């Protein structure tokens, strides 16, 4: 046996601080550009805004130094920058539309960052969450069903995914996403053997046993339920995609993916054929430019495409385009708004920020040594991917438009808070993943085997 020398890797917290400050400088600079372009002067709330965002991000950074000093140093700066860019675009659209969404978004940003801090302080080890597997399941379902409660639920643009309480509206589905990620991770880490090792092999597919089909059927039924009852294509897709991905990671069986895709395709085709609003979405997706659609049902999509085309390679510059022409330019279509003013170059930068965010999440999943942490990190990272894919794919006509929010960018409080919590959880898992090995050995879920090959920097 070789002698193991304790290695104390650098925590990279200083790098993180530097990057956070850089993110604040970029976002603050953009905020200033909007003011200078539209009003010819520095926005009056410039210092409050830049200082506020910077202060909150540094606060979370200090929490990390205190409670998770080995956490991944890229997650916080990336999330801060995305949040800042979103605020800038929302503010810029406020200027054009004479609304005041940015101040509310700023408040929610503060709330989100504080929530992330709270999670980091109180959840000192993500493995604690495993104890709440079934609690999370129940919480997730309740949150998903909340909009169906008469008097509490609100229908916005045909989708019943909101609740209204004391003048505030909230999308509980956003938080349900986290609860379900915890539940999936907790459930599957326990049942992975039953799901992966049993069953008959047909051709190259290891088919699961009928009784093990239960969970995937449940997830399927639940997501169809969301689709039918709440008319929410996006959440249904996100929920099911998340489940299939985590299922695959835990069982390493491609058969689950094939089954999942088949079932989802069947449901999707059925929905497209029978449900009016889904059918309409598909028609908009396939034929947005017909004279009738262009000015009617696909007006939003087409205006978004015009905006992006108008931006071209380098964009019109902040404040120089007409993103306000697109309905919901600061939420559903913030991607095309950014595309118009920042150009292809700007959108690539934004997409790369997401790639980095997700990549750090996947890296965390690979790095952490407990199965629950792996599944949780992978689930959360993949949910961010799916959300970006569904939104951007909808705006850019890869898939039909569905209703999901662009993580961190889009106007919307529930999404912002829940995504900050997602980042907090990823930070928490990554702290363990990157912590020197000696401390981990004694962990309750010390996984053996493949993960040992991963060298901690």
């Amino acid at each position, binding site marked *: 046996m070789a002698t193991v020398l304790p290695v104390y890797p650098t925590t990279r917290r200083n790098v993180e601080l530097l990057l956070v400050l850089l993110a604040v400088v970029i976002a603050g600079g953009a905020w200033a550009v909007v003011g200078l372009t539209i009003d010819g002067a520095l926005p009056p709330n410039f210092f409050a805004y830049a200082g506020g965002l910077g202060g909150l991000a540094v606060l979370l950074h200090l929490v990390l130094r205190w409670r998770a000093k080995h956490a991944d140093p890229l997650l916080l700066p990336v999330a801060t920058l995305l949040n800042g860019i979103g605020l800038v675009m929302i503010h810029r659209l406020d200027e054009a539309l004479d609304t005041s969404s940015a101040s509310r978004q700023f408040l929610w940003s503060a709330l989100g960052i504080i929530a992330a801090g709270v999670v980091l302080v109180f959840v000192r080890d993500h493995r604690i969450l495993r104890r709440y597997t079934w609690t999370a399941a129940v919480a997730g379902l309740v949150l998903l069903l909340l909009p169906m409660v008469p008097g509490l639920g609100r229908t916005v643009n045909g989708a019943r995914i909101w609740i209204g309480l004391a003048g505030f509206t909230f999308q509980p589905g956003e938080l349900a996403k986290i609860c379900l990620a915890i539940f999936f991770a907790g459930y599957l880490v326990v049942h992975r053997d039953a799901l992966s090792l049993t069953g008959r092999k047909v051709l190259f597919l290891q088919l699961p046993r009928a009784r093990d089909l239960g969970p995937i059927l449940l997830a399927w039924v639940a997501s169809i339920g969301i689709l039918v009852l709440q008319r929410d294509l996006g959440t249904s897709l996100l929920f099911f995609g998340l489940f299939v*991905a985590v299922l*695959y*990671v*835990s069982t*390493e069986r491609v058969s689950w993916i094939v089954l999942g895709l088949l079932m989802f395709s069947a449901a999707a085709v059925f929905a497209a054929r029978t449900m009016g609003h889904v059918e309409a979405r598909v028609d908009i997706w396939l034929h947005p*430019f017909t004279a009738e659609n*262009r*000015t009617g049902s696909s007006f939003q999509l087409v205006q978004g*495409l*015009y*905006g*992006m*085309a*108008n*931006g*071209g*390679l*380098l964009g*019109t*510059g902040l404040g*120089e*385009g*007409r993103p306000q*022409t697109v309905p919901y330019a600061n939420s559903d279509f913030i991607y095309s708004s950014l*595309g118009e003013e920042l*150009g*292809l170059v700007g*959108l*690539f930068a934004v*997409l790369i920020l*997401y*790639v980095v965010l*997700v*990549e750090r999440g*996947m890296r965390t*999943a*690979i790095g952490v040594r407990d*199965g629950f942490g*792996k*599944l949780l990190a*992978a689930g959360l*990272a*993949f949910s961010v*991917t*799916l959300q*970006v*894919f569904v939104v*951007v*794919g909808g705006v*850019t*006509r*890869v898939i039909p438009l569905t209703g999901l929010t662009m993580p961190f960018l889009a106007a919307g409080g529930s999404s912002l808070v829940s995504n900050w919590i997602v980042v907090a959880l990823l930070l928490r898992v990554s702290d363990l993943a990157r912590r020197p090995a000696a401390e981990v050995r004694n962990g309750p879920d010390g996984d053996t085997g*493949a*993960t040992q*090959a*991963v060298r901690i920097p």
Partner: protein
Amino acid sequence: MNRPLRRLSLVVAFLFFALFASTTWIQFLRADQLNAMPGNSRQLYAEFGRERGAILVDGGAAIASSVKSDDQYDRLRTYAAGQLYAPVTGYYSLRYGTSGIERAENDVLAGSADELFYRNLSSLLTGEQPKGASVTLTLRPKVQQAAWDALDGRKGAVVALDPDTGDILAMVSSPSYDPNTLATHDGDAEAQSWKSLNADEDDPLINRATGSLYPPGSTFKLVTAAAALESGDYTADTQLDGPQELALPQTSNTLKNDEGTACGPGDKVSLADALKISCNTAFGSLGLKLGADTIESQAAKFGFGQSLSIPTSVATSRYPTGDAVAGPLLAYSAIGQGSDVATPLQVAMLSAGIANDGVVMKPNLIANVRDSDSADVIEEPAPEELGRAVSSGTAKTLQQMMELVVSSGTGTRAQIDGATVGGKTGTAQHGAGLPPYAWFTSFAEKGGKKVAVAVVIEDGGSTESAYGGRLSAPVAKTVMEAALDG
């Protein structure tokens, strides 16, 4: 669980790759196509917000310019002289698009032309809207005004050319319209104006000088005469058959002279005299002898059958072919009736080619294109030959014959003191009982200055007598005087 995690990462990579690809597809590969979509209001807003280049006339006065406006479009297109230049400038409308020079030179005026790319590079980087270049026309305000005043509201058109260069010195079409009423940002007023202009039976939106095809009437006898002289078998003195009525082949119809008399003693008349008094039967019989092919190829040398862009588009003047010139119709076509059609510009090119010793210059409206900021000349079209229509000798003979028309023939009203003036009248029938089109095409020279003019007036009064000489020659005279003075 790391192997599936790595595979899942590949799925993530694939999903993001699809987004990178779709975004590139929209913002780079398909951007031009999307920008050009009908109803893409962004492009309209952008275009209307840009500082569009001015359209100037010779001497530097702006006849179309973009002024600041306080509405959502930032700038308003304004036409200083209203309907005087409208047929040339065209309109620039948010809803109804563009016409005339506004359309033909849109790239340059809007600043999106390729030749402006390097000049606009800095604005690309600074994010400033690129400025359009200004376009100076060859039109001379004095000549244009004279032509407009001389037409005096009558339906018709006037074109004045510099025979040596092809520069268009005046181009008037009447009735005209005020393009300001279409450029307005008041959508209702714009629609109202558009509706009433389109409903107007007089078609004010048409530039009659280049867009209307008229039977050229007797002005076409210049082409027939040119064909005869060029054949080498005829001179100005060759005697032609000029009876009171000309029997036409394959029919019992006859071709008559306007005056109802023979053109000369013994039914004979010289080519020069036939042109002077515009003898139908002499040119009809001449045409029958020359044949359709000869006349057609001569007409083509003057520009018939060629599509021109000056750079606004010009309707193609045509000498008929095939059945349309068979049998008796050949005689009609030789005197500019039958199926012959010509634009006033083409009729002006006849005189211009003859005045320029037989070489027809390509007509042109653009003097130069200048950068708005530096006033650097970006483009300056050089005079271009369309081709040689007749030999220099033939041209000289034709000039003398046309001078005879003005000195003692049907065109005496075009005489100008101290100037050499040649011309040809025309009175074109275009339907039984309808007032004929009164034509006059001419050239004048004085102290080295030259000009060629064509005038058409649609309401030729009654169907009697030679109206081209009475109605249109005085208009041509006024225009030529203005050109020679300036």
